[in-house]
């Protein structure tokens, strides 16, 4: 008999572990009342005259007034970028371009706490993620590509790499600053200038970033930020003087963009949606796998294009995995994004919450079994409990469509072949996970999974040196690494 059992009730274990609030101080960030557009190194009033309010999704409080750029504003921004490209930036000695990028990286690190708090306020993501993931990797991206700026001819031997010109970049709301870094760092390193449109719901860190550009002494017009909604993005995509479009977002919008640039000579890279399979074999280190599953789907509230949203469990360990998973889910702390103990923050917007709610309802309707831990949710703001669906058929919407929320669908398999077939049974192909102790099986699976990134015995790892991007309807082109340079260069 174990010691614990012998002790009986003499030393009662606590029934619940409560955490005292540990909020990160938010006074390190002060937002301006209003943010104009950042064009040609200056903050300008939108010619459209349109403004909108950006909020904190955790409290629905108003954070700042932000400009909406329309056709005319986008035109001015593209002109500023063109001007900066022709008159200095593209002909600058590559080593000098590198210096600006190093400066930006250093300043971002220096101001990382401020940016992390701003990011969590505006996006709803937990501070421990913005602090430990978004900010360090954003800065690392600038460091990484700074080093490439004066080495491009070594990256592409026997070719003469040259910049494309003006890059129009459209980024999503799930990793606002990180996606900005993924877009701007390689573009600038290759000698392009950019017009970047942050997401409608999360413009603030991009607008704070304009201050970093100023601090770094970046020449005016090299980076231009135009805020707004889908209309602004469409204006940017359709602008005739943009040489390249880089888009990260939904597959639906990605297809629209591909249609819009058809017949033009614009270069295009798309990083779109996903429905990744996270595959657990019966010989896997189970506790590690459980952590990987949790990280795979509840990281950033599951609002991650490469989220491991389909769990494929080998039948022989199904009960065990589900029991462990549910137990682990009970310990997830959902709440204030600025609390350092928070694991799952707020859903980014009301629209997104509605979409998640609708898809979850469809899962229940189609016959899947739902489980949610008994955590309390704040009254104001946009929240969704971590959710897992069992008894899911491959045809259910929750197994086919990208939910982009903290919702996991569990399927089972018996053989490696069946795992591959189910994993690949999707229009997407962004990422996949494999958990097994057998090395040869990892490589066998990795060969067969139609996905741009395969995480084996880990999940959701990112690094500036590692190329990221999808197969099939998850898009084309790679971001990160040497391959990430290609999207911003011409060789003719």
């Amino acid at each position, binding site marked *: 008999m174990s010691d614990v059992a012998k002790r009986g009730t003499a030393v009662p274990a606590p029934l619940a572990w409560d955490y005292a609030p540990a909020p990160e101080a938010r006074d390190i960030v002060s937002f301006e009342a209003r943010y104009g557009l950042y064009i040609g190194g200056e903050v300008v009033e939108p010619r459209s005259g349109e403004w909108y309010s950006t909020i904190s999704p955790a409290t629905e409080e108003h954070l700042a007034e932000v400009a909406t750029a329309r056709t005319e504003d986008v035109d001015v921004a593209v002109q500023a970028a063109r001007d900066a490209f022709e008159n200095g930036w593209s002909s600058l000695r590559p080593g000098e371009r590198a210096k600006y990028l190093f400066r930006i990286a250093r300043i971002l690190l220096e101001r990382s706490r401020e940016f992390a708090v701003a990011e969590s306020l505006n996006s709803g993501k937990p501070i421990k993620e913005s602090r430990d993931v978004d900010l360090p990797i954003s800065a690392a991206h600038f460091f990484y590509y700074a080093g490439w700026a004066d080495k491009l001819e070594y990256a592409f031997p026997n070719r003469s790499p040259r910049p494309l010109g003006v890059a129009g970049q459209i980024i999503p709301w799930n990793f606002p600053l990180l996606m900005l870094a993924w877009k701007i760092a390689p573009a600038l390193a290759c000698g392009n200038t950019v017009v970047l449109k942050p997401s409608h719901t999360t413009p603030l860190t991009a607008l704070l970033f304009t201050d970093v550009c100023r601090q770094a002494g970046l020449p005016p017009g090299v980076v231009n930020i135009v805020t707004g909604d889908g209309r602004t993005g469409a204006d940017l995509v359709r602008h005739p003087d943009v040489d390249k479009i880089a888009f990260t977002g939904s597959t639906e919008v990605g297809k629209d963009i591909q249609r819009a640039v058809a017949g033009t000579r614009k270069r295009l890279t798309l990083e779109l949606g996903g429905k990744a399979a996270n595959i657990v074999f019966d010989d896997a280190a189970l506790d590690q796998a459980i952590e990987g599953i949790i990280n795979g789907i509840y990281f950033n509230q599951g609002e991650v294009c490469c989220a491991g949203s389909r769990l494929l469990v080998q039948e022989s360990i199904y009960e065990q995995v589900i029991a462990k998973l549910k137990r682990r889910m009970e310990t997830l702390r959902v709440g204030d994004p600025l609390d350092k103990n928070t694991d799952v923050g707020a859903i980014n917007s009301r629209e997104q919450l509605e979409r998640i709610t609708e898809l979850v309802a469809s899962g229940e309707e189609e016959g899947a079994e739902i489980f949610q831990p008994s955590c309390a949710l704040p009254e104001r703001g946009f929240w969704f409990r971590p959710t897992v669906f069992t008894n899911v058929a491959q045809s259910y919407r929750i197994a086919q469509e990208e939910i982009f929320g903290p919702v996991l669908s569990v399927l089972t398999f018996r053989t490696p072949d069946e795992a591959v077939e189910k994993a690949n049974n999707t229009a997407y192909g962004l990422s996949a996970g494999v958990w097994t102790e057998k090395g040869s099986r990892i490589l066998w699976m990795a060969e067969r999974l139609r996905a741009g990134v*395969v995480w084996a015995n880990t999940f959701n790892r990112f690094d500036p040196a590692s190329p990221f991007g999808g197969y099939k309807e998850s898009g084309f082109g790679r971001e990160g690494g040497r391959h990430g340079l290609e999207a911003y260069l011409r060789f003719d």
Partner: protein
Amino acid sequence: MARLPVRKTYKLYVGGAFPRSESGRTYEAEGQNVARASRKDVRDAVRAARGAYPGWAGATAYNRGQVLYRLAEMMEARASDLAAVCSGPAEVEAAVDQVVWYAGWADKLPQVLGGTNPVAGPYFNFTIPEPTGVVALIAPDEPPLGGLVSRVAPAVVGGNAVVVVASELHPLAAIEFAECCATSDLPGGVVNVLTGLQGELAPVLAAHMDVNAIDLTGVEGDGAELERVAAENVKRVVRQADEQSPWEIAMFLELKTVWHPIGA
């Protein structure tokens, strides 16, 4: 008794066989009757390519190279027939050389296009190129053989299966090339050749949901409408051929990055 020359109707090359167009239609090109493929022939060709794809992609790189060297040999053996349907022996020789050149890339691509990535953390991380899948190629009119080979060779060497729309104007080089494919060790369905009207066939391929990439090199005009319909399944679109290079192969490849922790 001497044999009487019969004017025959040339056929399609689909799944390693030479069927007539299911429509029974033909058109005249270069003084010959040539099959005029229909959308159902496109469907069959894509199906054949999809079926052949896993085996070809899964063959060892060494084996794919060997098969393509053999294809070059078959072309050389038919050099005079090929020369009769293109600009002449010089074009044939260049085309053979090009197949040999690309064949040699089969087992070198990951070393040039991939690599290991020095990530900050205890992870082994590498990137390898993989074939995109089924690739549609719209062959250019000129040069009749060289233009075709310059598109087929880079797409096939990387492990893709292809459906080629032959030049509408000069289909005979494509038909003769199909004979070379059929007598090489290239598995049936890896290369499929459709002759017919580009305006009929290209839109069907561009919109086909089981085609992963399309090369518009031979398309008349800006190809805007083809690109638009290609977006429906986010096809990779190659707008224009470039010079012979491994980057031409890379146009038809995906990059896969694999992570694994390093630990005792």
